[in-house]
């Protein structure tokens, strides 16, 4: 009897334990679902929902307007920055050209080499005059020379070139004949430019200065 009662109690306890465990297990899940449903709109009054929808539509219209304004602003900024970028590029290009002409950058490229030799034979020796040399140089610049050197001395926009006795002063350096003039640029253009009638070569010819023009590639001017 006692054994039966004990086993009966045990089974009762087990049953209660299991069923309360099962019910307890489902309770949090149920509470969570109800909480989520409250946060959603499923159980709201239709009138409230209509009001919410109208508010949201108005807000959407306002935000669309704002978005359009901002998009236009962004476009403006992009266009402005594109312009700025183009200007910067142009300026950079100009700087590069100026640096070249200043002699700040070493260059290498196709060009021509003009070798001037005075002739010491004959009744009067020929002497290269300043004006002739300057004419030759300006003809070269005009024909598209990007860089010129005289006997390896780089010429810039501000370099002075003049005859001083037997020497030729190029800026603060001294050199003498024969003169090898290297010019980087369009070789075709430059040689044609020199050969125009009445041009530098003609004049040098008159003065009996020998001028040999060669197309050289590449020429290196530091």
């Amino acid at each position, binding site marked *: 009897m006692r054994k039966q009662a004990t086993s009966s109690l045990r089974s009762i*306890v087990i049953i*209660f*334990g299991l069923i*309360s*465990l099962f*019910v307890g*297990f489902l309770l*949090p899940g*149920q509470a969570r*679902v109800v909480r989520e449903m409250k946060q959603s709109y499923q159980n709201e009054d239709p009138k409230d929902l209509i009001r919410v929808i109208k508010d949201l539509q108005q807000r959407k219209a306002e935000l669309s307007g704002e978005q359009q304004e901002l998009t236009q602003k962004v476009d403006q900024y992009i266009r402005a920055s594109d312009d700025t970028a183009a200007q910067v590029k142009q300026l950079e290009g100009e700087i590069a050209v100026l640096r070249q002409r200043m002699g700040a950058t070493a260059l290498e490229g196709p060009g021509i080499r003009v070798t001037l030799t005075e002739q010491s034979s004959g009744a009067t020796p020929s002497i290269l005059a300043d004006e002739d040399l300057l004419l030759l140089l300006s003809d070269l610049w005009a024909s598209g020379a990007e860089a010129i050197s005289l006997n390896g001395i780089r010429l810039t926009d501000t370099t002075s070139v003049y005859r001083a006795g037997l020497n030729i002063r190029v800026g603060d350096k001294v050199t003498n004949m024969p003169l090898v003039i290297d010019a980087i640029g369009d070789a075709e253009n430059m040689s044609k430019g020199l050969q125009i009638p009445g041009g530098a070569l003609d004049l040098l010819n008159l003065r009996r200065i020998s001028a040999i023009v060669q197309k050289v590639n590449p020429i290196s001017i530091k």
Partner: protein
Amino acid sequence: MVGFVTVCGLVIGIVLGIVRPVHIPAVYSKYVGLALLAGMDSILGGIKGYLKDSFDATVFFSGFLINSLVAALLGYLGDQLGIDLYLAAVVVFGSRMYQNIAIIRRVLLKKEA
């Protein structure tokens, strides 16, 4: 002893339910709620029966199952018919829970006396 086990079982069940939550679809949450209400009423009824020495495991277990099912079905039927039939389950099981708790309280107090 039985009360203690029941409370422990509930607590452990709740803790398990929090740690490993079961996903109840929102559509069925109402019916699950009704079934849980019926289940809790059955547990209290069982405790009452045990304290009054009239507990029957078969009656208890079948009562738990059937009452839970019927409560859920009433809710579902009411939704289909467009009437709040679930209220019947809420009122009945709610009032039964109150009665059972009252009886349990009286029996426990008598026993202590």
